[in-house]
C-alpha cells in the first residue's frame, strides 16, 4: 500500500470516526450492561433501546462551559484531555482489522502501539498536576506508579508472543495463528511453540490491559469513593468528554491487541471464512468482558495493585518468557 497524503487523511478520519463512535456507543453498552447486571433497564427513553442517548449526552457536554480552576496551569490543563485522546487514535492507524483493512501496516507495529500506549499515562499526570486539586494530584501520582508497574509484565508477555511469531509485524503475528483455534497463541498446540502456559500469559496480558486502561478493578486514578473523581475532578464540558472517550478508545485498543496477539485476529476458530467479522466478534466479546468485570469486582488498593504486579505478574511472565525461549530452542 502506498502512503499517499490522501491515504493518510482518510485513514486518520476513519480512525477518529471509529474511535469516537466506539467511545459513544460503548458508554451506552456499558450503561445498559451495568443496568442489566443490576436488574435495571438502563437508558431506554431516548430512541429505540435508548440508542439516541450517547449523541444527546455529547451535545449536552459540548454545550457546557469549559471552566479552568483558578491557579491552574492553563496550557497543561487544556493539553491533558487532548493527549488522552490522541495516542488512542494514532494507535488505530496501525491495527490490522483484516488482511486488507489496515491503514498503514508497519513491521514494528507492536512497538508503535506500545509507544503510544505509554503516552496515555502522561495525560493523567498533566491533568492531575495542572488541576491544582489535592485529589487530582494524588490520583496522578497513583497513575504513574500503576503505569510503571503494569507496562513491564505487559511488554514481557508481548515479547513472548513476538518470540513465538518471530516478528513484530502485527499482520505476520496473525497470519501465523490463522489455520485453526489450536494455532492461536492462547492454546498453541499446533503452532510454532507447544507452550501450555500460554493461557496464563493471556490472563496476565488481559489483567495488564485492565490496569493500563485504568478500568475497574484497577481504576485507582479515578477511585470515586476516595478521590472524588481523581484526575478529572476539575474537568467539565468536553474536557471531561475527551477523557471519557479516551478511556473507551483505550479499551478498544487494548482489546484489539489482545485479539491480535492471542486470539488469532481475523482468523476463524475452524479455518472457515476468515474476515473482519471474526475480528469484530472477538473484539466485542473482550469489551463485554471488560464491562462485566467492572460491574462485578470492588477496587483494589494501591499496594495490592503493586503487589500483584511485582510479586505475581512479573515473576510469572518472566518465567513464561524463559520457558518459551527454551521451547523454541529445543524444537
Amino acid at each position, binding site marked *: 500500500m502506498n502512503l499517499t497524503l490522501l491515504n493518510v487523511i482518510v485513514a486518520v478520519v476513519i480512525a477518529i470516526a471509529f474511535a469516537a463512535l466506539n467511545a459513544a456507543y460503548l458508554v451506552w453498552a456499558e450503561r445498559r450492561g451495568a*443496568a442489566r*447486571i443490576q*436488574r435495571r433497564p438502563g437508558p*431506554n427513553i431516548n430512541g429505540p433501546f435508548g440508542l439516541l442517548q450517547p449523541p444527546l449526552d455529547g451535545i449536552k457536554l459540548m454545550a457546557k462551559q469549559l471552566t479552568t480552576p483558578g491557579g491552574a496551569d492553563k496550557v497543561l490543563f487544556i493539553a491533558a484531555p487532548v493527549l488522552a485522546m490522541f495516542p488512542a487514535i494514532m494507535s488505530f492507524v496501525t491495527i490490522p482489522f483484516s488482511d486488507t483493512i489496515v491503514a498503514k501496516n508497519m513491521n514494528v507495529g507492536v512497538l508503535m502501539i506500545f509507544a503510544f500506549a505509554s503516552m496515555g499515562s502522561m495525560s493523567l499526570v498533566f491533568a492531575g498536576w495542572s488541576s491544582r486539586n489535592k485529589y487530582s494530584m494524588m490520583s496522578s501520582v497513583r497513575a504513574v506508579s500503576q503505569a510503571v508497574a503494569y507496562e513491564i509484565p505487559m511488554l514481557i508477555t508481548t515479547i513472548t508472543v513476538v518470540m513465538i511469531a518471530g516478528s513484530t509485524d502485527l499482520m505476520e503475528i496473525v497470519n501465523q495463528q490463522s489455520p485453526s483455534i489450536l494455532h492461536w497463541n492462547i492454546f498453541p498446540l499446533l503452532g510454532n511453540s507447544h507452550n501450555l502456559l500460554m493461557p496464563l500469559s493471556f*490472563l496476565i496480558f488481559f489483567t495488564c490491559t485492565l490496569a493500563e486502561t485504568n478500568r475497574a478493578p484497577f481504576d485507582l486514578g479515578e477511585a470515586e469513593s476516595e478521590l472524588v473523581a481523581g484526575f478529572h475532578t476539575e474537568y467539565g464540558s468536553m474536557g471531561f468528554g475527551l477523557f471519557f472517550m479516551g478511556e473507551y478508545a483505550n479499551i478498544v485498543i487494548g482489546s484489539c491487541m489482545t485479539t491480535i496477539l492471542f486470539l488469532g485476529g481475523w482468523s476463524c476458530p475452524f479455518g472457515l471464512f476468515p474476515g473482519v467479522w471474526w475480528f469484530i466478534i472477538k473484539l466485542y466479546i473482550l469489551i463485554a468482558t471488560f464491562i*462485566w468485570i467492572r460491574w*462485578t469486582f470492588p477496587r483494589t488498593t494501591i499496594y495490592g495493585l503493586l503487589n500483584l504486579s511485582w510479586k505475581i505478574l512479573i515473576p510469572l511472565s518472566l518465567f513464561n518468557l524463559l520457558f518459551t525461549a527454551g521451547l523454541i530452542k529445543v524444537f
Partner: protein
Amino acid sequence: MVTYFSEIYRGLLSLFEGMGVTFKEFIKPTVTVSYPYETLEMCERYRGHIELIENEEGEPNCVVCMMCQRACPSDCISIAGKKEEGSKKKVLTKYMLDFTKCSLCGTCVESCNFNALDFSKEYNLASTRKEDFYFDLLKRLEDRNK
C-alpha cells in the same frame, strides 16, 4: 511456594465465581418500575398528608374540637369554626394544613375522636413554590365532591 500458588489459584477461582453470580443476574428480568410510565398503587395504610372525611351530606365530620391542632408536634394545622345561631354544633370554616412543616407522623389522625381525618394516598406533590404546600383541606374536599 505452595501457598503462593494455591493463593493465586483460589483467588482466581473466587473471581470467576463472582463473575458467575453477576452473569446469572444479567440474564434475569429487570425488577424496577419505570416510574412516570408505570405507577404503583399505594398500600391501604399509606400515610400521605391528611384529608377531611365527609359524612353522607358531603359536609366534613369535623366538629372543631381542636384536638388535632393541639396534638400536632410541628404546628402545621390551623382550624377555625363558628357556631351557627340556634344549632349546638360548631361548623368548620377553615382547615389549613402547612405541609412544609408536616412530618407525616399521624398524631392528628390518632387524636381525632370524631372520624374526621384520614390520610390521602397522594404522593405526587412536587412543586417549585412554597405556597403550593399550604393546603386548604376544605377546598380540597369541595373539589373532590364536584
